[in-house]
């Protein structure tokens, strides 16, 4: 009797725990559905060709998001151009030259911290070292701020991917007399290419929604501007400004911008996933 009630109690506890875990999963996925659902609902109703062909309007009139889209593309592009080479080189050092170095373990630790450091602090840092000395906000400062966020992501994936390259490949290349730099460039990079591109895609996904580091580096611009040496609009910052404004049509544009960003980010991360799972 006692044994069977003990067993019943254990089973009951098990059932309760399992239902809770099921409920928790439904809860977690529910948010994804809810957020994406609202985003689609609000964003699609404002989506039209106009959004991609006209600049941000003054309150009360119609317009699009062309100048922040241009700004975002330029800022992101430059950030990738700055951040990726440094990240790949640093990752190369960690995986190829100094795999068992003390320096490598220190850099790995610091890099992991940079990877999740608050992005607003990066904005403050770039404000201190670029915006303040230059005397004005600029697209360059925004790009460098984003590059500081790109770099740790690329360092991490490059190192991880190069470590996965089998040593036999390196040994075979060394045996036919290739110098180290060629082994890395012609053999290891090729073997790890898919993974390294994944890293860059993930980094782009990460920065295309970043707002905080741009607020006081690239600032914002009401007008279309190709000049990286001047303040520059970007989608996230415009969303921030428009969403908090009291004007209905600005809020509408903010939702549409949010939709564009979210789908860019989701497409990039799905592409990255597809690339890395294809071996």
């Amino acid at each position, binding site marked *: 009797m006692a044994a069977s009630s003990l067993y019943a109690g*254990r089973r009951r*506890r*098990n059932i309760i*725990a*399992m239902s809770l*875990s*099921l409920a*928790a*999963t439904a809860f*977690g996925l529910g*948010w*994804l559905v809810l*957020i994406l659902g*609202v*985003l689609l609902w*609000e964003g699609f109703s404002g989506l039209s060709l106009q959004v991609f062909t006209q600049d941000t309007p003054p309150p009360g009139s119609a317009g699009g998001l062309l100048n922040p889209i241009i700004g975002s593309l330029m800022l992101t592009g430059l950030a990738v151009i700055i951040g990726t080479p440094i990240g790949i*080189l*640093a990752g190369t*050092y*960690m995986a190829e*030259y*100094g795999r068992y170095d003390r*320096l*490598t373990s*220190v*850099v790995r*630790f*610091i890099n*992991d*911290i*940079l990877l*999740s*450091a*608050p*992005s*607003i*602090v990066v904005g*403050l*840092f770039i*404000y*201190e*070292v670029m915006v303040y000395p230059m005397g004005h906000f600029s697209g360059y400062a925004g790009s460098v701020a984003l590059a500081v966020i790109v770099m740790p992501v690329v360092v991490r994936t490059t190192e991880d991917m190069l470590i996965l390259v089998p040593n036999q490949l390196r040994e075979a290349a060394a045996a036919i007399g290739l*110098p*180290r*730099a060629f082994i890395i*460039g012609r053999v290891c990079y090729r073997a790890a290419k898919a993974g390294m591109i994944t890293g860059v895609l993930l980094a782009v996904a990460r920065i295309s*929604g970043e707002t*905080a580091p741009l607020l006081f580096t690239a600032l914002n611009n009401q007008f279309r501007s190709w000049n990286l040496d001047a303040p520059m609009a970007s989608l*996230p910052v415009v969303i*921030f400004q428009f*969403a*908090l404004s009291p004007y209905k049509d600005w809020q509408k544009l*903010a*939702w549409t911008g*949010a939709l564009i*960003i*979210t789908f860019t*980010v*989701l497409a990039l*991360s799905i592409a990255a996933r597809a690339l890395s799972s294809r071996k």
Partner: protein
Amino acid sequence: MVDVALQSEAAVLSAAASRAKALDRLRLGDRIFRLLTRAAALAVLAILGGVMVSLFIGSVPALREFGFSFLIEQRWNPVTEKFGALAPIYGTLVTSFIAMLIAVPVGLMIAMFLTELCPMWLRRPIGIAIELLAGVPSIIYGIWGLFVFAPFLQETLQPFLISTLGNVPIVSPLFEGPPYGIGVLTASLILAIMVLPFITSISRDVFEAVPPVLKEAAYGVGCTTWEVVRYVVLPYTRVGVIGGVMLGLGRALGETMAVTFVIGNAHKVSASILAPGTTISATIANEFTEAVGALYTSSLIALGLILFFITFVVLAIARYMLLRIERRIG
């Protein structure tokens, strides 16, 4: 004959010389490449060092003016230029604490579902969905929180909390005041949704790393699934789970946009979690571009320094914990 021999010898010599030259060039290229990679690795360190130094230099005027009282004063008055960081620090810690209170149990439960209960064919899709949730930019959470979630809370959860828990003696101060919609509670809930995927995916990874033999042995002596998780999986992965939780906490502490939209930006420490408040990152995001005067700017940078210090410690602990479990699992 002799001539030919001499000629070929010369050819060999010059070939050897050009080979040596080519090898030298390769060796030089090799050395330069190695130096470049090393410089890039050092650049990672330099950036972290640069962040610390520049924030410190930027906050010197504020720290000199206010000293230690900067940390414990609540006033924040741009007109009289008197600044204290207590309200943002308090808001940062409270919102993150409430967020973790919700996200940790839910995240662990989802991880348990994914590793023990979920049918194989469903594991990957759900895992990917959770990771997509982690990739949604924080500004999306912010705009969603402002337009959808805050009004919803204002009409449903908050009046409910006020009318029920608001009358319970000890906890009633927590639920005082009108339902604003925006405020500490709303920010905490949004943060919870944001860090949930991080905690889930790390705990799932460490749960999966438990050697099957251990779990099979526990099932073999008749444990229920819950008992296997509670007495085998959790103790084995404790360090890793704590690491994942700390990583999520680091995110929550530094999160800017999602919070800025819904916290209300009030420089006030109030007992009620329904009241508007502020966090370090929200204060900086809201006020930095509008800050006039060196002291105001410097005070905001000092806030950034405090935030960086807090998150650095939390993230360092997280990485240390995760490193320990990585070594154990091997």
